[in-house]
């Protein structure tokens, strides 16, 4: 699956699997960041009031900013098939076309459409032909997926829509600036030639805020690596060309379906690397890409060292402290690995789902980091059971619990510091530059504690009677 030679010296990691009774966001939440990322898209979530209620509350103030998303709220007639799905969807999509005129409508299938077996994949091509707007179907439902995996299902569907060179030429007679850039390496200008080294076309996948995209692209450019496109781009109409033999790399740990689709359907080669989270991760990510392209990385060691130096004040705060990941967004392994490098001990890595193949680079890097830092490799608990975890937390009394909002306030009231995990999904955490932002988040409860430590009110509940 991966191309580079594996590091096999690290000790084995212990994996466990619990009951799956844990709290996380529904994967339809991905519309919140994807509609902002893909500027000409419209997301239509086909579900019930429950889905709508979740989105409305989880997205907070965003909901008032005329978002380019809506619910197709199923009524009793839809459930009992008294209404024809095709006609109903056509009516709504016509309305969306009229009001917003998007370049793509993304249908998000939900639990309900799964259960009543609404054939979204079947209806979409017909309707697409009729209304003249591409319709991408992603089944981001709570029956199968957790939180960030929603993005994975959307990007996997989009991967199938990425043009080939032939299609792209056909669509765009006069290639614009971006197109020129995309086509580079095939037949195009020589003057950039010296900036980049010779390597096969290379596309990155994963939705990141634009400043982070620019940042990572420039980091690779410093190594002479040219990023020929991102899945997704800022606009649906700018999806990158993907052809057989292209190289691809993921920027986030939850993109395993997208990776699989790119490999199997688009015949790309996946570079399996650790993820560019933390300066250690970013360096390992770049090095792995370089190694695949046979490029000798320049100045990475110094760059990493310099970043660490700038982080020193935050590292001092957390060194030697313990952290417990309850698990809800699949960033857990990468974050744990970075925090171990910062000198923390990780007591447990809870994670909704563990793709050991897609995350192999990251898992190996975790083991290696633990070895180098002289700490025990934490157990990775897949599909955790929140109740059991709370018992373990009570026992272990970690210095920091990274958890969802359902548990954060109750834990704080019991004197356990928490960091709300969802913030890691929305903050900019990738690349060298953003390493400080991760620690900003991680240290916030600890800094708050330092400010309040003499007040004597860290525990704010009456002692629970043991039943």
């Amino acid at each position, binding site marked *: 699956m991966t191309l580079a030679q594996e590091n096999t010296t690290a000790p084995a990691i212990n994996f466990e699997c619990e009951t*799956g*009774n*844990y*709290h*996380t*966001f*529904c*994967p339809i939440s991905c519309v919140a960041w994807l509609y902002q990322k893909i500027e000409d898209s419209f997301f239509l979530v*086909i579900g*019930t*009031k*429950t889905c*709508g*209620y*979740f989105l*409305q*509350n*989880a997205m*907070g103030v965003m*909901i*008032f900013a005329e*978002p380019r998303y*809506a*619910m*197709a*709220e*199923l*009524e*009793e007639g*839809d*459930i009992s098939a008294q*209404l024809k799905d095709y006609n*109903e*969807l056509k*009516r*709504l999509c016509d309305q*969306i076309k009229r009001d917003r005129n998007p370049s793509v409508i993304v249908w998000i299938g939900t*639990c*309900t459409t*799964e*259960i*009543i077996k609404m054939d979204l994949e079947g209806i979409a091509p017909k309707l697409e032909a009729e209304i003249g707007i591409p319709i991408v179907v992603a089944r981001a439902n*709570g*029956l*199968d997926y*957790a*939180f960030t995996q929603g993005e994975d299902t959307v990007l996997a569907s989009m991967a199938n829509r990425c043009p080939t060179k032939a299609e792209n030429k056909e669509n765009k007679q006069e290639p614009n600036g971006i197109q020129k850039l995309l086509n580079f390496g095939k037949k195009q200008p020589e003057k950039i030639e010296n900036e980049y080294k010779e390597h096969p076309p290379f596309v990155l996948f994963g939705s990141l805020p634009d400043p982070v995209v620019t940042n990572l692209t420039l980091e690779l450019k410093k190594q002479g690596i040219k990023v020929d496109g991102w899945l997704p781009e800022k606009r649906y109409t700018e999806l990158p060309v993907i052809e057989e033999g292209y190289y691809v790399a993921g920027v986030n740990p939850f993109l395993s379906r997208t990776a699989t689709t790119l490999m199997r359907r688009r015949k790309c080669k996946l570079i399996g690397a650790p993820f560019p989270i933390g300066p250690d991760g970013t360096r390992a990510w770049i090095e792995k890409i370089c190694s695949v392209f046979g490029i000798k990385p320049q100045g990475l060691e110094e760059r990493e060292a310099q970043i660490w130096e700038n982080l020193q004040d935050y590292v001092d705060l957390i060194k030697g402290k313990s952290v417990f990941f309850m698990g809800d967004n699949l960033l857990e392994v990468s974050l744990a690995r970075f925090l171990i490098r910062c000198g923390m001990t990780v007591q447990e890595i809870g994670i909704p789902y563990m793709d050991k193949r897609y995350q192999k680079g990251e898992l190996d890097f975790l083991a290696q980091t633990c070895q180098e830092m002289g700490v025990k490799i934490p157990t990775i608990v897949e599909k955790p059971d929140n*109740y059991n975890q*709370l018992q373990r937390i009570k026992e272990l009394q970690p210095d920091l619990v990274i958890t*969802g*909002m*359902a*548990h*954060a*306030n*109750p834990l704080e*009231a019991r004197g356990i510091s928490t960091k709300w995990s969802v913030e890691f999904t929305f903050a900019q955490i990738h690349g060298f530059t953003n390493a400080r932002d991760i620690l900003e988040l991680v240290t916030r409860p600890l800094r708050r504690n330092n400010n309040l430590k003499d007040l004597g009110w860290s525990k*704010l*509940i009456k002692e629970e009677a043991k*039943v």
Partner: protein
Amino acid sequence: MKLAYWMYAGPAHIGTLRIASSFKNVHAIMHAPLGDDYFNVMRSMLERERDFTPVTASIVDRNVLARGSQEKVIDNIVRKDQEESPDLIVLTPTCTSSILQEDLQNFVSRAQLNSKGDVMLADVNHYRYNELQAADRTLAQIVKFYIEKAQKKGDISTTRTPHPSVNIIGISTLGFHNHHDCRELKKLMADLGIEINLIIPDKATVEELKTLPQAWFNLLPYRELGLATAEYLQTQFDQPFVDITPMGVVETARCIRKIQEVLTAKGAEVDYEDFIEHQTLYVSESAWFSRSIDCQNLTGKKAVVFGDNTHAASMTKILVREMGINVVLAGTYCKYDEDWFRREVSEYCDNILVSEDNGEIGDAIARLEPSAIFGTQMERHVGKRLNIPCGVIAAPIHIQNFPIGYRPFLGYEGTNQITDLIYNSFTLGMEDHLLEIFGGHDTKEVITKGISADSDLFWDKEAQGELNKVPGFVRGKVKRNTEKFARDRGFEQITLEVMYAAKEAVGA
């Protein structure tokens, strides 16, 4: 299928969970896919709850879809029974489980065999009821269950308490200012010499429910929650109820007089008239406020009211009857209880709007251009966009609507809070007046001519200058009205004369 961007009332299971988690030592288990336990986040965040929300999910995943839940739900119930020993476990269906059509009642019966606590299936259909209706039904269901249980065991206490006493029904978690209202009602009852028998569902235990019949009467502060329970108790135990929301000076007095009537009928000798007068004149500042010159400046100002039945109806009456404000539109999203709302407000407002579509309300507000809006968080944002102030009076609400400070909407302190809310929402009277005389704070506008750039009509220099003197928050409206007037009459240029003519004609 319905295209929807926003909803006022949540799905049914939210109502059931609000009831279950309001009680002490009651646990709810949702039969739901991963991610549907968002209720826990809301309760933990909005109410800043220190305790873990007693709601867990029995996860519906792919396997359940293929093979059915089988033992899973039962195991989860029995496990929770052992872990936390709740008095009651409420199995809560969601939209997903509704269409799976598994025999949840059968799971409940089987789980009951191995559980020490009681187990019950919440009887709510997801596609027929919303959050509010489901909450009302679930509360009634739980009350009925424990009354019948006590009747069977023979330890129900139907003897009335020696002194007049009351059950307060309808205080629940995630309710709009419910905890403050509860405190205010307790104080009011104490002032009236009425003992509190039981408050439900808030912090009550299910064991206490069998004492409900001891109270002389039931008080229902909110239209949406408790009616089914009160009606049940009335038929079972001939227990009367008072369902007048004590919100606003007039309605609070009416509520108290009704209580007096109920108690007198039961043989108590009570006369609350002196109390009402004292409170009205000296404790509540609201009556005095309505006489003061501040409130005079609000006379005839236009307002739009929208919310749930209880708050929108009460607010409309307060604005019109107690402050002389002109409510041009009163609306509710409680479509299922539409008739009640129409009866309550029809004589107080120009128009009534019953709708669950936020777009419809937004458009109405834009059309009517009120001076202030009293609505939900959605209307607050509409107001922001249109530059119209808004006071939030009903759910859906955000974290800032769960204040730490004491902010009841009910009772005499409630009248004070509402007065502040109303007064602060309208631009302060004198300031408004002075701005009109002196042409506003934003004198920068006078030297820019950009204001008319987006219109096809030409404003001459003098007229433009005059327009710039109009205070910022009504300037757009004056401009639109003047231009409409000019267009209607075929003027191409707007002069001072046209402006004045427009003002005289349409009050621009």
